[in-house]
Each structure stands twice: as structure tokens, then as C-alpha cells.
């Protein structure tokens, strides 16, 4: 894209610039401004934590030092990757399943008034189901040695945010667009395909972005209730039960990384699917 240089800016480069021109200039200074604060805060926090534990003589079984956690992270790195892959696969499968079902349900709910009125409370009730209740029930319904129960837990957890945001997006159609399509005598599906679905896309991806981290949490937590001992969740609980808290925290850090990875991928997909949003002022 071309940058229109504002004469005022050219005259005084340090003057505050308008939104568009500033966004297009990804200078080093901008990067520092964007990334500096979180990095500094994180570093300060970890340093304070380390000092508190080492100088304050906090017992290692109460709160391990970051250095001890980092050491365990290094030692168990291979295991963190393999177990993270297992948990991540479950999270991804559940995320895809839950999203597809939520999209179909939202489309149906936005088309049929009655369904729309009924579905939101039902979805909210589903959202209120705690994993602690879901997981054991699903483990009994399906074989506990398969990954199906965990993936279903993730799908159920993911369903709600995607469903609600998508439904909102589908219902927000610009009246001008509606009139235009009406004047073309467009059918229901054509109208959906050309106006409602593209218009809802940003909402859909907002939902997916919210759901992405939830999916990882649900996948890890659902391992707590039985099934294969192949994921991060089983490692966190077994390390904690052995009072190996530094190791438990190392696996928790692994789960954090996995959650961030999911979030970032969702963010990138959102940018790719709705290029007009990152260009204009969002």
C-alpha cells in the first residue's frame, strides 16, 4: 500500500502522526514501544519471584524458583514436547469439531426465529457444565482408553463462544446490503453466502480466538479424569503428587506455550480471513 506523506509530518518528523500513517511505519521504535513493556514487566516479575524465593527462604514445595522450573523444563523438554503434542492434538480435534458444530448451529439459529430463541439459553446451560462433571461421564460413555471423551469435552467447551459470537455476527446485517440483495431478488442461500457469512467472519474469528486458549485448557484438565496417560495434564498431576513442584510447573509452562501457540495461530487465521480489518482502522 502507498503511504501518503502528510506535509505536516514531513515538516516535523517527531510530531504525533495520524493513525494510518503511523501504522504503516513499522519502525524499530514502534516495535520497542509495542514489545518493551510486556518484556520488562515479565522480566521484573520473574526477577522479583526468583529473589523472593531464594532470599525469602520460601520452601521449594510451596513455590519453586523460576531457575528451578527452567532447569526442569530443560530436563523434561523431550517429554514436554511429546505430551504437549498429545494434548495439542486433542485440543485441535475438539476445537475443529466444536467450531464446525457451533457454526452450523448458529446458521440454523439465525435462520429460524424459534431456534434462535431456544438455542441461546440451551447453549448457555451447556457452557455452564463444568469439566469435572463432563469428563467422567464421557469417559464412561466411550472407552476411556480412546481420545474421544477428551475431544468431546474440548468441543463442548469451545462450542459456546464460537456459537454466540457467530450468531451475533449473522444477525448484524447492514440494512443497505439487505435492500440491495432484495432488489436483486436474491434467494436465502445466495444472501447468506454473499452478505451474511462474509459479514459474520470477523465475529466467527473472534469466537475462535477466544476458544483457542480454552481448548488447550479443556484438553489438559480433562486428562485429570482418567484415560491415556499421554498428555500434559497427567504429567502435571503426577509431578505435583510427587511433590516435584518444579517439574509440575515446567509442564504448566508447557501448557502455557501450547495455549499461546493456539492463540497466535487463531490470530493469524483471523488476519488472513479478514484482510480488510487489519488494513482499515479496526
Amino acid at each position, binding site marked *: 500500500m502507498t503511504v501518503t506523506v502528510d506535509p505536516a509530518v514531513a515538516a516535523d518528523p517527531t510530531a*504525533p502522526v495520524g493513525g494510518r500513517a503511523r501504522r504503516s511505519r513499522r519502525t524499530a521504535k514502534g516495535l520497542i*514501544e509495542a514489545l*518493551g*513493556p510486556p518484556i*520488562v*514487566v515479565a522480566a*521484573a*516479575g520473574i526477577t*522479583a*519471584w526468583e*529473589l*523472593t524465593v531464594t532470599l*525469602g*527462604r*520460601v*520452601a*521449594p*514445595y*510451596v*513455590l519453586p524458583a523460576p531457575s528451578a522450573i527452567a532447569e526442569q523444563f530443560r530436563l*523434561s523438554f523431550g*517429554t514436554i514436547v511429546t505430551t504437549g503434542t498429545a494434548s495439542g492434538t486433542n485440543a485441535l480435534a475438539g476445537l475443529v469439531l466444536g467450531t464446525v458444530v457451533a457454526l452450523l448451529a448458529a446458521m440454523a439459529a439465525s435462520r429460524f426465529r424459534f431456534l434462535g430463541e431456544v438455542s441461546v439459553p440451551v447453549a448457555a446451560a451447556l457452557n455452564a457444565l463444568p469439566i469435572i462433571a463432563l469428563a*467422567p461421564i464421557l*469417559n*464412561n460413555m466411550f*472407552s*476411556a*482408553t480412546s481420545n474421544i471423551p477428551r475431544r468431546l469435552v474440548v468441543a463442548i467447551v469451545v462450542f459456546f463462544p464460537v456459537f454466540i459470537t457467530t450468531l451475533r455476527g449473522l444477525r448484524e446485517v447492514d440494512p443497505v446490503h439487505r435492500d440491495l440483495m432484495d432488489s436483486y431478488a436474491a434467494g436465502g442461500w445466495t444472501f447468506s453466502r454473499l452478505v451474511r457469512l462474509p459479514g459474520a467472519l470477523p465475529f466467527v474469528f473472534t469466537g475462535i480466538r477466544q476458544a483457542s486458549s480454552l481448548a488447550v485448557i479443556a484438553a489438559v484438565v480433562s*486428562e485429570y*479424569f*482418567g*484415560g*491415556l*496417560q*499421554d498428555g500434559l495434564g*497427567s*504429567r502435571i*498431576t*503426577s509431578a505435583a*503428587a*510427587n*511433590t*516435584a*513442584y518444579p*517439574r509440575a510447573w515446567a509442564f504448566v509452562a508447557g501448557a502455557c506455550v501450547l495455549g499461546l501457540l493456539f492463540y497466535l495461530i487463531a490470530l493469524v487465521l483471523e488476519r488472513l480471513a479478514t484482510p480488510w480489518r487489519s488494513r482499515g482502522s479496526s
Partner: protein
Amino acid sequence: MSKTIFGRRRAAGLLMSTVLAVALAGCGTADEQTAGPTSSGGLTTVKLQLQWFVQAQFAGFLAAADQGFYAEQGLDVQILEGGVDIVPQTVLAQGQADYAVAWVPKALASREQGVGITEVAQIFQRSGTYQVSFANKNITSPADLRGKKVGNWGFGNEFELFAAMTKAGLDPGKDVTLVQQQFDMQALLTGDIDAAQAMSYNEYAQLLEAKDPATGELYKPEAFAVLDWNTVGTAMLQDAVWANTERLSDPAYQETTVKFLAGTLKGWAFCRDNPEKCRDIVVAKGSKLGASHQLWQMNEVNKLIWPSPNGAGLLDEAAWNATVDLSMTTKNQDGQTVLTKKPEGTAYTNEYVQKAIDQLTAAGTDVVGSGFTPATVTLTEGGA
């Protein structure tokens, strides 16, 4: 403009992390909080943390409280129920209890992480853990587990099984499919897993309390094959009483420890001679499963304690060393061992339990139980 925001944010972040750190430091420093004994009506109040829900596994403690054996020692013992996520060792080390019941390997793992606890009595002389499978699966030795779906509870309860597999030349991470087992036998009964972890005194009985759909009758022992770690040779020491290491330097706490152990052993001797009475005490305390199940459990637990030729509660050093060796050499599926080095400092002492044994023997209480013969308990459906 952005500079001031940046500055403010950094300050807030620093402030928050400092507050958090200070708050955390306040709740559990390495400096022991000595929750010194408090008195109530002339009795010294003592808190005991169990490692599981109230059941006959802890009958001796419950009976000692119920029958007044603690009171005659001048103690008022409050028994704190355990659960899935309660780690008795840390409850003890943080001063929220005066004594705790915990398995030896788990407690030693906690000690390695800086939990200041010392074993003062070994209640169970033998391991009560089985690996059970349906007889038709032909799992008669640990080697037969190869390629099978093997259930285990995790939470540090799995190391005898891992030791047995390792001994049989199996790699627990590769040669079997490990399944996180719930604290019940459903997965085995539905055929979800091939072999399940079970305590002789609890989950094994739950199998015999279940109906065989093929016959409509309860399952018979013949329907199952049992791997017993005592015979396999990978047994580890289980229920033991742990005390707070730091406080053991205090003469008052030492005295309380002897009194507490004397009351406890008298309770266990009482349950050896009166299993039905102890069953009633346990059920009245609100055990999850019913009377027939608790009587079975009482009988099985008695088998783990009696006879004790040197006196109940006395730790056998050979068994201790075997447990420590297994804890240092047995690798789980990730190649981790329970312990990375030999226990340092005072990990156990027989000093106080010996005093308690001597005191009870002088008073005429039998703490050897050489004449003990287990009973035969009939189980009913659902352990009612």
C-alpha cells in the same frame, strides 16, 4: 505521552509482582510455623492428617480416639480426613497438622523437595497393592503385561507396578499402554483396561462386590488373576506415621509423639482383637462404603500389620532400604525416579515407637499379635 504510560505500566507490574511475592512469602516460608500443642480441658490437642477418606485402613487411629486410648495418654486427637488432592506431608510440614499418615516413597519424594518430615512409626509392615486382571487374560506374571492396557492411579501410587515391569524387562513407556485409572474398578469390569491397580483391602473387594453379568452372581476370586508385589519382590513400604522434623528437637513434642504412638498402637491392637467393633466405629465415622466392605478392609489391613514379631509400628531397616533402592532405581514412563539421591538427615527413627511399644508391653497390651489369624469375610453386592 506513551513514555508516561510505559513508566506507569512498568511500575504497576513491579508493584504487582512484589505484592504477589510478599503475599506468597507470607504463606509458607521455610521457617516452620510451630503450631504448638494447645490444651483443651487438660488434654493436649493433636491433629492427625490421614491420606485418604475415612475407612478401615485407618481403623486403629479412629478406634484409639473412640475408645479413649488417646485420652488416657492425655491427648485429644483430631483426625483430619484426606482426599485425592490432599498431600499429607505438606499439610504436616506447613504446621496444619502434628502428624500425618503417608506412604514411604511419596513422603521421601516430598522430603527431597525440602519437606521437613521424619517417619516415627511404620504401621503397615507389608504392601497392600495388587495388579488385578480377569483370569482369562492370562496375566500371571509382570512380563505378561507386555502390549496390554495397564491401569494405574498415578499420584505416586504406581511405582511398585513400574518396578515390577522394569524387573521383568519391560519399558513402561513403550511396552505397555498406560491408562490413568479412576479410584474404582469400572474400567477393568467394562473391559476398558486389561489390568487394574487395586488395594487388597479396598478396590479388590469392590471387584468381589460386583455382579458378573454372565452368571448374575457376584464375581468369585477365581475370576481374577492377582499380581501381589510382596511375592513379585517389588513391594514398597506404605502407611507410616510421619512427624515434623524441626519440632522433634522439642522435648514436649517428643513426649507427645510417644504418647500418640502408644495410643495408636493400642488402637490397632484393639482392632486386631475386635474387627467388628472397629468396623462399626469406621462406619459411624462416615465411611463411603458400607459395613461388609469395611469388615473386609479391617481384616485385610490386619493382615498387613499382624503378626509383628518386633512389635507393631517398628520399622524394619531391610524393608526401608529396599524401598529406598526401588525409589532411586525405578523409572516411570518419562525416565524419572521417585528419589534422585539417598534420603538425607533423619528420615526415620524407631526411638519413639520403641518407647511406645515398651510402655504398652509393660502395661500388658499385646503389640506382637503372634496368635493372629485372619477371618473369612463374606462380601455383599456394592459393599453395603
